[in-house]
Protein backbone atom coordinates (compact mmCIF):
# COMPACT_ATOMS: atom_id res chain seq x y z
CA UNK A 1 0.00 0.00 0.00
CA UNK A 2 1.37 3.42 -0.81
CA UNK A 3 1.22 6.24 1.68
CA UNK A 4 -1.71 8.03 0.02
CA UNK A 5 -3.83 4.88 0.28
CA UNK A 6 -2.73 4.53 3.87
CA UNK A 7 -3.63 8.11 4.80
CA UNK A 8 -7.02 7.59 3.20
CA UNK A 9 -7.53 4.32 5.05
CA UNK A 10 -6.44 5.77 8.40
CA UNK A 11 -8.69 8.78 7.94
CA UNK A 12 -11.64 6.59 7.04
CA UNK A 13 -10.95 4.49 10.11
CA UNK A 14 -10.78 7.62 12.23
CA UNK A 15 -14.07 8.95 10.86
CA UNK A 16 -15.73 5.58 11.41
CA UNK A 17 -14.56 5.52 14.99
CA UNK A 18 -15.69 9.11 15.56
CA UNK A 19 -19.14 8.11 14.40
CA UNK A 20 -19.18 4.92 16.39
CA UNK A 21 -18.23 6.65 19.64
CA UNK A 22 -20.49 9.67 19.33
CA UNK A 23 -20.71 10.44 23.04
CA UNK A 24 -16.98 10.29 23.56
CA UNK A 25 -16.38 12.30 20.40
CA UNK A 26 -18.73 14.97 21.66
CA UNK A 27 -17.12 14.95 25.11
CA UNK A 28 -13.67 15.35 23.59
CA UNK A 29 -14.75 18.20 21.35
CA UNK A 30 -16.40 19.97 24.29
CA UNK A 31 -13.25 19.45 26.37
CA UNK A 32 -11.06 20.92 23.65
CA UNK A 33 -13.31 23.88 23.03
CA UNK A 34 -13.77 24.60 26.73
CA UNK A 35 -10.03 24.60 27.40
CA UNK A 36 -9.31 26.57 24.25
CA UNK A 37 -12.01 29.05 25.24
CA UNK A 38 -10.31 29.66 28.59
CA UNK A 39 -7.06 29.79 26.70
CA UNK A 40 -8.50 32.40 24.34
CA UNK A 41 -9.81 34.58 27.14
CA UNK A 42 -6.42 34.39 28.78
CA UNK A 43 -4.71 35.23 25.50
CA UNK A 44 -6.91 38.28 25.06
CA UNK A 45 -6.26 39.54 28.57
CA UNK A 46 -2.54 38.93 28.15
CA UNK A 47 -2.55 40.66 24.78
CA UNK A 48 -4.35 43.69 26.22
CA UNK A 49 -1.98 43.93 29.18
CA UNK A 50 0.93 43.55 26.83
CA UNK A 51 -0.32 46.37 24.65
CA UNK A 52 -0.68 48.55 27.72
CA UNK A 53 2.82 47.71 28.86
CA UNK A 54 4.20 48.37 25.40
CA UNK A 55 2.51 51.73 25.19
CA UNK A 56 3.91 52.71 28.58
CA UNK A 57 7.29 51.45 27.50
CA UNK A 58 7.19 53.47 24.30
CA UNK A 59 6.39 56.61 26.26
CA UNK A 60 9.51 56.44 28.37
CA UNK A 61 11.53 59.58 27.67
CA UNK A 62 14.68 60.93 29.14
CA UNK A 63 16.24 64.37 28.99
CA UNK A 64 19.84 65.36 28.55
CA UNK A 65 20.24 68.83 30.09
CA UNK A 66 22.78 70.97 28.37
CA UNK A 67 25.17 73.40 30.01
CA UNK A 68 24.42 77.07 29.46
CA UNK A 69 27.60 77.96 27.70
CA UNK A 70 27.53 75.04 25.26
CA UNK A 71 29.09 75.59 21.83
CA UNK A 72 27.38 74.49 18.62
CA UNK A 73 30.08 71.90 17.96
CA UNK A 74 29.63 70.44 21.41
CA UNK A 75 25.88 70.40 20.96
CA UNK A 76 26.00 68.54 17.66
CA UNK A 77 28.55 66.20 19.18
CA UNK A 78 26.11 65.38 21.99
CA UNK A 79 23.37 64.78 19.47
CA UNK A 80 25.55 62.40 17.48
CA UNK A 81 26.42 60.46 20.61
CA UNK A 82 22.78 60.12 21.59
CA UNK A 83 21.73 59.01 18.13
CA UNK A 84 24.39 56.33 18.12
CA UNK A 85 22.96 54.61 21.19
CA UNK A 86 21.00 51.47 20.43
CA UNK A 87 17.30 51.78 21.20
CA UNK A 88 16.98 55.53 20.71
CA UNK A 89 13.88 56.29 18.69
CA UNK A 90 13.92 60.06 18.37
CA UNK A 91 15.93 63.01 19.59
CA UNK A 92 14.31 66.37 19.90
CA UNK A 93 16.02 69.62 20.83
CA UNK A 94 14.01 71.55 23.39
CA UNK A 95 14.99 75.15 24.03
CA UNK A 96 14.73 76.55 27.52
CA UNK A 97 11.78 78.68 26.40
CA UNK A 98 9.88 75.68 25.12
CA UNK A 99 10.69 73.84 28.29
CA UNK A 100 9.31 76.71 30.34
CA UNK A 101 6.08 76.79 28.31
CA UNK A 102 5.64 73.03 28.56
CA UNK A 103 6.27 73.09 32.26
CA UNK A 104 3.75 75.85 32.75
CA UNK A 105 1.19 74.00 30.72
CA UNK A 106 1.75 70.80 32.64
CA UNK A 107 1.27 72.57 35.94
CA UNK A 108 -2.03 73.98 34.71
CA UNK A 109 -3.85 75.81 37.42
CA UNK A 110 -1.02 75.31 39.84
CA UNK A 111 1.31 77.42 37.73
CA UNK A 112 1.23 80.13 40.38
CA UNK A 113 4.41 78.63 41.80
CA UNK A 114 6.14 79.96 38.74
CA UNK A 115 5.38 83.50 39.77
CA UNK A 116 8.58 85.43 39.79
CA UNK A 117 9.92 83.46 36.87
CA UNK A 118 9.42 84.50 33.31
CA UNK A 119 10.90 83.68 29.95
CA UNK A 120 13.71 86.06 30.68
CA UNK A 121 14.29 84.68 34.11
CA UNK A 122 14.08 81.08 33.14
CA UNK A 123 15.68 78.51 35.46
CA UNK A 124 15.31 75.66 32.98
CA UNK A 125 18.19 74.62 30.73
CA UNK A 126 18.17 73.73 27.06
CA UNK A 127 17.90 70.01 26.56
CA UNK A 128 17.62 67.04 24.25
CA UNK A 129 14.41 65.10 24.74
CA UNK A 130 15.12 61.49 23.88
CA UNK A 131 12.33 59.05 23.23
CA UNK A 132 13.23 55.38 23.42
CA UNK A 133 12.26 52.14 21.77
CA UNK A 134 12.63 50.23 25.02
CA UNK A 135 13.10 51.47 28.57
CA UNK A 136 16.37 49.54 28.83
CA UNK A 137 17.96 52.09 26.49
CA UNK A 138 17.70 54.80 29.14
CA UNK A 139 20.63 53.34 31.03
CA UNK A 140 22.66 53.09 27.88
CA UNK A 141 22.05 56.74 26.98
CA UNK A 142 23.03 57.79 30.47
CA UNK A 143 26.24 55.77 30.26
CA UNK A 144 27.09 57.18 26.84
CA UNK A 145 26.70 60.75 28.02
CA UNK A 146 28.68 60.52 31.22
CA UNK A 147 31.60 62.94 31.08
CA UNK A 148 30.69 64.37 27.67
CA UNK A 149 31.41 68.10 27.48
CA UNK A 150 28.36 70.34 27.47
CA UNK A 151 26.09 67.86 29.18
CA UNK A 152 25.11 69.01 32.62
CA UNK A 153 22.96 66.15 33.67
CA UNK A 154 20.85 63.31 32.35
CA UNK A 155 17.32 63.30 33.72
CA UNK A 156 16.60 59.68 33.98
CA UNK A 157 13.86 58.59 36.23
CA UNK A 158 15.74 55.47 36.94
CA UNK A 159 13.46 54.04 39.56
CA UNK A 160 10.34 54.49 37.50
CA UNK A 161 11.96 53.06 34.43
CA UNK A 162 13.21 50.09 36.38
CA UNK A 163 9.77 49.50 37.83
CA UNK A 164 8.23 49.55 34.39
CA UNK A 165 10.81 47.11 33.07
CA UNK A 166 10.30 44.81 36.04
CA UNK A 167 6.54 44.87 35.73
CA UNK A 168 6.64 44.19 32.02
CA UNK A 169 8.94 41.23 32.58
CA UNK A 170 6.78 39.86 35.36
CA UNK A 171 3.63 40.10 33.28
CA UNK A 172 5.27 38.40 30.34
CA UNK A 173 6.76 35.55 32.31
CA UNK A 174 3.51 35.03 34.16
CA UNK A 175 1.85 34.82 30.78
CA UNK A 176 4.25 32.08 29.69
CA UNK A 177 3.71 30.12 32.91
CA UNK A 178 -0.08 30.34 32.67
CA UNK A 179 0.14 29.37 29.01
CA UNK A 180 2.13 26.23 29.83
CA UNK A 181 -0.23 25.28 32.66
CA UNK A 182 -3.24 25.68 30.41
CA UNK A 183 -1.67 23.55 27.68
CA UNK A 184 -0.81 20.82 30.18
CA UNK A 185 -4.28 20.85 31.68
CA UNK A 186 -5.93 20.61 28.29
CA UNK A 187 -3.58 17.80 27.27
CA UNK A 188 -4.44 15.92 30.43
CA UNK A 189 -8.19 16.36 29.93
CA UNK A 190 -8.11 15.44 26.28
CA UNK A 191 -5.88 12.41 26.67
CA UNK A 192 -8.19 11.14 29.39
CA UNK A 193 -11.23 11.58 27.20
CA UNK A 194 -9.53 9.87 24.29
CA UNK A 195 -8.50 7.07 26.63
CA UNK A 196 -12.18 6.17 26.79
CA UNK A 197 -12.25 5.58 23.03
CA UNK A 198 -9.03 3.65 23.23
CA UNK A 199 -10.36 1.62 26.14
CA UNK A 200 -13.50 0.72 24.25
CA UNK A 201 -11.28 -0.56 21.46
CA UNK A 202 -8.60 -2.28 23.52
CA UNK A 203 -9.59 -5.71 22.18
CA UNK A 204 -9.07 -4.51 18.68
CA UNK A 205 -5.71 -3.05 19.64
CA UNK A 206 -4.75 -6.37 21.25
CA UNK A 207 -5.69 -8.25 18.09
CA UNK A 208 -3.74 -5.80 15.96
CA UNK A 209 -0.72 -6.38 18.16
CA UNK A 210 -0.73 -10.15 17.90
CA UNK A 211 -1.27 -10.25 14.17
CA UNK A 212 1.82 -8.04 13.83
CA UNK A 213 0.68 -4.45 13.43
CA UNK A 214 3.35 -1.89 14.12
CA UNK A 215 2.70 0.66 16.85
CA UNK A 216 2.40 3.47 14.33
CA UNK A 217 -0.11 1.53 12.30
CA UNK A 218 -2.26 1.30 15.42
CA UNK A 219 -1.60 4.90 16.41
CA UNK A 220 -2.38 6.76 13.21
CA UNK A 221 -6.18 6.38 13.17
CA UNK A 222 -6.33 7.49 16.81
CA UNK A 223 -4.06 10.44 16.16
CA UNK A 224 -6.09 11.53 13.14
CA UNK A 225 -9.20 11.09 15.28
CA UNK A 226 -7.66 13.29 17.96
CA UNK A 227 -6.66 15.88 15.40
CA UNK A 228 -10.15 16.05 13.95
CA UNK A 229 -11.67 16.45 17.41
CA UNK A 230 -9.05 19.04 18.34
CA UNK A 231 -9.62 21.02 15.17
CA UNK A 232 -13.40 21.05 15.57
CA UNK A 233 -13.00 22.03 19.22
CA UNK A 234 -10.64 24.80 18.22
CA UNK A 235 -13.03 26.16 15.59
CA UNK A 236 -15.91 26.20 18.07
CA UNK A 237 -13.79 27.90 20.74
CA UNK A 238 -12.58 30.47 18.25
CA UNK A 239 -16.12 31.19 17.09
CA UNK A 240 -17.29 31.78 20.65
CA UNK A 241 -14.29 33.88 21.64
CA UNK A 242 -14.40 35.96 18.46
CA UNK A 243 -18.09 36.74 18.52
CA UNK A 244 -18.07 37.48 22.24
CA UNK A 245 -15.06 39.74 21.85
CA UNK A 246 -16.64 41.69 19.00
CA UNK A 247 -19.57 42.57 21.24
CA UNK A 248 -17.31 43.50 24.15
CA UNK A 249 -15.03 45.57 21.93
CA UNK A 250 -17.91 47.54 20.45
CA UNK A 251 -19.26 48.15 23.93
CA UNK A 252 -15.99 49.29 25.45
CA UNK A 253 -14.91 51.52 22.58
CA UNK A 254 -18.30 53.22 22.62
CA UNK A 255 -18.33 53.98 26.31
CA UNK A 256 -14.67 54.93 26.65
CA UNK A 257 -12.87 57.52 24.61
CA UNK A 258 -9.52 56.10 25.14
CA UNK A 259 -9.10 52.38 25.36
CA UNK A 260 -6.08 50.53 24.18
CA UNK A 261 -7.60 47.25 23.05
CA UNK A 262 -6.79 44.48 20.63
CA UNK A 263 -9.00 44.92 17.60
CA UNK A 264 -11.41 42.16 16.54
CA UNK A 265 -9.61 42.23 13.22
CA UNK A 266 -6.41 41.25 14.98
CA UNK A 267 -8.22 38.47 16.82
CA UNK A 268 -9.62 37.13 13.55
CA UNK A 269 -6.28 37.19 11.79
CA UNK A 270 -4.17 35.71 14.57
CA UNK A 271 -6.38 33.67 16.83
CA UNK A 272 -8.13 31.76 14.05
CA UNK A 273 -5.07 29.80 12.97
CA UNK A 274 -3.57 29.73 16.46
CA UNK A 275 -6.70 28.02 17.77
CA UNK A 276 -6.74 25.60 14.85
CA UNK A 277 -3.10 24.64 15.24
CA UNK A 278 -3.36 24.37 19.02
CA UNK A 279 -6.43 22.15 18.67
CA UNK A 280 -4.67 19.90 16.15
CA UNK A 281 -1.53 19.59 18.26
CA UNK A 282 -3.40 19.00 21.51
CA UNK A 283 -5.59 16.37 19.83
CA UNK A 284 -2.68 14.53 18.27
CA UNK A 285 -0.56 14.64 21.41
CA UNK A 286 -3.55 13.71 23.57
CA UNK A 287 -4.14 10.57 21.48
CA UNK A 288 -0.49 9.69 21.60
CA UNK A 289 -0.45 9.91 25.39
CA UNK A 290 -3.75 8.05 25.71
CA UNK A 291 -2.42 5.12 23.67
CA UNK A 292 0.84 4.77 25.48
CA UNK A 293 -0.32 2.32 28.11
CA UNK A 294 -2.32 0.22 25.67
CA UNK A 295 0.55 -0.25 23.28
CA UNK A 296 2.98 -1.46 25.91
CA UNK A 297 2.32 -5.15 25.50
Amino acid at each position, binding site marked *: *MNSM*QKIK*MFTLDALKSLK*RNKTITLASIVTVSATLFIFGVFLLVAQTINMGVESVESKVEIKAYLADGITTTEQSNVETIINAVEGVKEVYYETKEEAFENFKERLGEDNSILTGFSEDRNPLPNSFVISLEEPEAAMRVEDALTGVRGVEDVGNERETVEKIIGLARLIRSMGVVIFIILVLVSLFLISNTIKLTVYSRR*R*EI*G*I*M*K*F*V*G*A*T*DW*FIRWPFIIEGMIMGLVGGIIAFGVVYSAYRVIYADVTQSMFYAELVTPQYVLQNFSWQFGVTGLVIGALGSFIALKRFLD*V
Partner: protein
Amino acid sequence: MNIGRCNMIEFKNVTKKYDNKVMALDNISVRIDSGEFVFLVGASGAGKSTFVKMLLKEVEPTSGEVIVGNKNLKGVTKKDVPYYRRKIGMVFQDYRLIPTLNVYENVAFAMRVIDATPKEIRRRVPMVLALVGLSDRSRSFPSELSGGEQQRVSLARAIANNPTLLIADEPTGNLDPETAKDIMRLLMDINKAGTTILMATHAKDIVDSSKRRVIALEKGQIVRDEKKGRYEFNAEN
Protein backbone atom coordinates in the same frame (compact mmCIF):
# COMPACT_ATOMS: atom_id res chain seq x y z
CA MET B 1 12.40 -15.47 8.55
CA ASN B 2 14.41 -18.09 6.81
CA ILE B 3 13.23 -21.50 7.84
CA GLY B 4 15.69 -24.32 7.73
CA ARG B 5 14.56 -27.87 7.22
CA CYS B 6 15.14 -28.70 10.82
CA ASN B 7 14.58 -26.46 13.82
CA MET B 8 11.44 -24.43 14.13
CA ILE B 9 11.65 -23.75 17.83
CA GLU B 10 14.53 -24.27 20.18
CA PHE B 11 14.68 -23.48 23.89
CA LYS B 12 18.19 -23.57 25.34
CA ASN B 13 18.32 -23.73 29.14
CA VAL B 14 15.48 -21.26 29.42
CA THR B 15 14.52 -20.03 32.86
CA LYS B 16 11.88 -17.48 33.65
CA LYS B 17 11.47 -16.04 37.09
CA TYR B 18 8.84 -13.38 37.50
CA ASP B 19 9.28 -10.39 39.79
CA ASN B 20 7.12 -12.07 42.41
CA LYS B 21 9.73 -14.85 42.56
CA VAL B 22 7.48 -17.37 40.82
CA MET B 23 9.57 -19.77 38.78
CA ALA B 24 7.50 -20.09 35.62
CA LEU B 25 10.06 -22.01 33.58
CA ASP B 26 12.95 -23.82 35.14
CA ASN B 27 15.93 -24.51 32.90
CA ILE B 28 14.01 -25.83 29.91
CA SER B 29 15.68 -27.21 26.81
CA VAL B 30 13.56 -28.48 23.96
CA ARG B 31 13.55 -28.62 20.17
CA ILE B 32 10.58 -28.62 17.85
CA ASP B 33 11.20 -29.35 14.19
CA SER B 34 9.71 -27.56 11.29
CA GLY B 35 6.46 -29.26 10.22
CA GLU B 36 5.79 -30.91 13.57
CA PHE B 37 2.49 -30.96 15.43
CA VAL B 38 3.11 -30.66 19.15
CA PHE B 39 0.77 -30.68 22.12
CA LEU B 40 1.84 -28.65 25.11
CA VAL B 41 0.07 -30.00 28.17
CA GLY B 42 0.15 -29.30 31.86
CA ALA B 43 -1.98 -28.01 34.70
CA SER B 44 -2.72 -24.33 35.07
CA GLY B 45 0.39 -22.59 36.30
CA ALA B 46 2.71 -25.28 34.92
CA GLY B 47 4.33 -22.73 32.60
CA LYS B 48 2.38 -23.20 29.36
CA SER B 49 1.44 -19.56 28.97
CA THR B 50 4.95 -18.40 29.72
CA PHE B 51 6.20 -20.83 27.09
CA VAL B 52 3.78 -19.43 24.51
CA LYS B 53 4.38 -15.80 25.49
CA MET B 54 8.09 -16.31 25.08
CA LEU B 55 7.57 -17.47 21.52
CA LEU B 56 5.66 -14.26 20.82
CA LYS B 57 8.35 -12.27 22.58
CA GLU B 58 5.85 -10.96 25.05
CA VAL B 59 8.02 -12.31 27.84
CA GLU B 60 11.81 -12.32 28.01
CA PRO B 61 13.65 -15.27 29.51
CA THR B 62 15.54 -14.56 32.73
CA SER B 63 18.30 -16.72 31.37
CA GLY B 64 18.80 -19.01 28.38
CA GLU B 65 17.94 -18.55 24.73
CA VAL B 66 14.85 -18.93 22.59
CA ILE B 67 15.37 -19.52 18.90
CA VAL B 68 12.48 -19.49 16.45
CA GLY B 69 13.14 -20.34 12.81
CA ASN B 70 16.88 -19.72 13.04
CA LYS B 71 16.27 -16.40 14.75
CA ASN B 72 17.52 -15.86 18.25
CA LEU B 73 14.81 -13.80 19.90
CA LYS B 74 17.42 -11.93 21.88
CA GLY B 75 18.31 -10.19 18.65
CA VAL B 76 14.75 -9.15 17.88
CA THR B 77 14.43 -5.53 18.98
CA LYS B 78 11.23 -3.99 20.27
CA LYS B 79 10.80 -2.34 16.91
CA ASP B 80 11.15 -5.65 15.07
CA VAL B 81 8.63 -7.52 17.21
CA PRO B 82 5.59 -6.71 15.00
CA TYR B 83 7.42 -7.96 11.92
CA TYR B 84 8.56 -11.06 13.75
CA ARG B 85 4.98 -11.82 14.88
CA ARG B 86 3.71 -11.73 11.32
CA LYS B 87 5.24 -15.15 10.77
CA ILE B 88 3.28 -16.62 13.67
CA GLY B 89 -0.43 -17.34 13.55
CA MET B 90 -2.31 -17.23 16.84
CA VAL B 91 -5.55 -18.92 17.83
CA PHE B 92 -7.12 -18.41 21.25
CA GLN B 93 -9.74 -20.12 23.34
CA ASP B 94 -11.96 -17.03 23.18
CA TYR B 95 -11.51 -16.54 19.38
CA ARG B 96 -10.76 -12.82 19.77
CA LEU B 97 -12.73 -11.63 16.79
CA ILE B 98 -13.72 -8.00 16.35
CA PRO B 99 -17.48 -7.94 16.97
CA THR B 100 -18.14 -4.94 14.73
CA LEU B 101 -16.56 -6.55 11.68
CA ASN B 102 -18.06 -9.39 9.67
CA VAL B 103 -16.27 -12.65 8.93
CA TYR B 104 -14.65 -11.42 5.74
CA GLU B 105 -13.56 -8.16 7.36
CA ASN B 106 -12.11 -9.93 10.39
CA VAL B 107 -9.79 -11.95 8.17
CA ALA B 108 -9.05 -9.01 5.88
CA PHE B 109 -8.24 -6.93 8.95
CA ALA B 110 -5.31 -9.19 9.84
CA MET B 111 -3.94 -8.78 6.33
CA ARG B 112 -4.52 -5.07 6.17
CA VAL B 113 -2.67 -4.59 9.42
CA ILE B 114 0.49 -5.98 7.91
CA ASP B 115 0.32 -3.88 4.76
CA ALA B 116 -1.10 -6.41 2.32
CA THR B 117 -2.36 -4.84 -0.90
CA PRO B 118 -6.13 -4.71 -1.51
CA LYS B 119 -5.58 -7.05 -4.43
CA GLU B 120 -3.83 -9.63 -2.26
CA ILE B 121 -6.58 -9.33 0.32
CA ARG B 122 -9.32 -9.90 -2.25
CA ARG B 123 -7.54 -12.98 -3.48
CA ARG B 124 -6.48 -14.50 -0.19
CA VAL B 125 -9.48 -13.98 2.11
CA PRO B 126 -11.97 -16.07 0.08
CA MET B 127 -9.31 -18.73 -0.21
CA VAL B 128 -8.74 -19.16 3.52
CA LEU B 129 -12.46 -18.89 4.21
CA ALA B 130 -13.06 -21.73 1.77
CA LEU B 131 -10.33 -23.70 3.52
CA VAL B 132 -12.12 -23.49 6.87
CA GLY B 133 -15.51 -24.07 5.21
CA LEU B 134 -17.03 -20.66 5.83
CA SER B 135 -17.37 -19.32 2.30
CA ASP B 136 -21.12 -18.91 2.72
CA ARG B 137 -20.85 -17.05 6.02
CA SER B 138 -18.46 -14.32 4.97
CA ARG B 139 -21.03 -11.54 5.50
CA SER B 140 -22.10 -12.76 8.95
CA PHE B 141 -21.02 -11.06 12.15
CA PRO B 142 -19.32 -13.00 14.96
CA SER B 143 -22.43 -12.74 17.15
CA GLU B 144 -24.40 -14.63 14.49
CA LEU B 145 -21.99 -17.57 14.48
CA SER B 146 -21.67 -20.63 16.67
CA GLY B 147 -18.54 -21.10 18.78
CA GLY B 148 -17.10 -23.59 16.31
CA GLU B 149 -17.69 -21.23 13.43
CA GLN B 150 -16.09 -18.37 15.28
CA GLN B 151 -13.06 -20.50 15.98
CA ARG B 152 -12.87 -21.36 12.30
CA VAL B 153 -12.87 -17.65 11.48
CA SER B 154 -10.03 -17.16 13.91
CA LEU B 155 -8.19 -20.07 12.25
CA ALA B 156 -8.74 -18.48 8.85
CA ARG B 157 -7.35 -15.24 10.20
CA ALA B 158 -4.36 -17.04 11.71
CA ILE B 159 -3.38 -18.63 8.40
CA ALA B 160 -4.26 -15.65 6.20
CA ASN B 161 -0.72 -14.33 6.36
CA ASN B 162 0.89 -17.70 5.62
CA PRO B 163 2.57 -18.23 8.98
CA THR B 164 5.35 -20.75 9.36
CA LEU B 165 4.29 -21.40 12.94
CA LEU B 166 0.78 -21.60 14.32
CA ILE B 167 0.25 -21.37 18.05
CA ALA B 168 -3.13 -22.50 19.31
CA ASP B 169 -3.85 -21.70 22.94
CA GLU B 170 -6.69 -23.97 24.12
CA PRO B 171 -8.43 -23.70 20.73
CA THR B 172 -11.09 -26.26 21.68
CA GLY B 173 -11.57 -25.08 25.26
CA ASN B 174 -14.98 -23.55 24.65
CA LEU B 175 -16.27 -26.11 22.15
CA ASP B 176 -18.35 -29.26 22.41
CA PRO B 177 -16.52 -32.52 21.51
CA GLU B 178 -17.94 -32.77 17.99
CA THR B 179 -17.03 -29.20 17.07
CA ALA B 180 -13.66 -29.64 18.72
CA LYS B 181 -13.00 -32.57 16.39
CA ASP B 182 -13.78 -30.38 13.38
CA ILE B 183 -11.29 -27.79 14.55
CA MET B 184 -8.70 -30.52 15.13
CA ARG B 185 -9.19 -31.85 11.62
CA LEU B 186 -8.60 -28.35 10.29
CA LEU B 187 -5.48 -27.95 12.36
CA MET B 188 -4.19 -31.29 11.08
CA ASP B 189 -4.87 -30.17 7.50
CA ILE B 190 -3.00 -26.95 8.08
CA ASN B 191 -0.15 -28.93 9.57
CA LYS B 192 -0.09 -31.28 6.58
CA ALA B 193 0.35 -28.27 4.35
CA GLY B 194 3.61 -27.60 6.15
CA THR B 195 2.84 -25.25 9.01
CA THR B 196 4.37 -26.13 12.35
CA ILE B 197 1.69 -26.27 15.04
CA LEU B 198 2.06 -25.87 18.77
CA MET B 199 -1.14 -26.45 20.65
CA ALA B 200 -1.48 -25.80 24.36
CA THR B 201 -4.41 -27.78 25.68
CA HIS B 202 -6.24 -29.48 28.51
CA ALA B 203 -8.30 -31.70 26.23
CA LYS B 204 -7.32 -35.23 27.19
CA ASP B 205 -9.43 -36.99 24.55
CA ILE B 206 -8.02 -34.94 21.75
CA VAL B 207 -4.41 -35.47 22.79
CA ASP B 208 -4.91 -39.19 23.30
CA SER B 209 -6.64 -39.76 19.97
CA SER B 210 -4.30 -37.60 17.91
CA LYS B 211 -1.13 -39.63 18.60
CA ARG B 212 1.19 -36.67 18.19
CA ARG B 213 4.18 -35.44 20.12
CA VAL B 214 3.33 -34.37 23.67
CA ILE B 215 5.45 -32.09 25.80
CA ALA B 216 4.24 -32.06 29.39
CA LEU B 217 5.12 -29.23 31.74
CA GLU B 218 4.94 -29.36 35.49
CA LYS B 219 6.11 -26.62 37.83
CA GLY B 220 8.09 -25.05 35.06
CA GLN B 221 9.91 -28.19 34.01
CA ILE B 222 9.45 -30.62 31.16
CA VAL B 223 8.41 -33.84 32.82
CA ARG B 224 7.62 -35.75 29.66
CA ASP B 225 8.35 -35.48 25.96
CA GLU B 226 7.01 -38.36 23.89
CA LYS B 227 6.79 -38.86 20.15
CA LYS B 228 3.27 -40.28 20.13
CA GLY B 229 2.25 -39.20 23.55
CA ARG B 230 -0.82 -39.36 25.72
CA TYR B 231 -2.30 -36.77 27.99
CA GLU B 232 -2.07 -38.67 31.30
CA PHE B 233 -0.81 -36.36 33.92
CA ASN B 234 -0.46 -36.92 37.64
CA ALA B 235 -1.65 -33.61 38.97
CA GLU B 236 -4.53 -33.35 36.53
CA ASN B 237 -7.99 -34.71 37.14
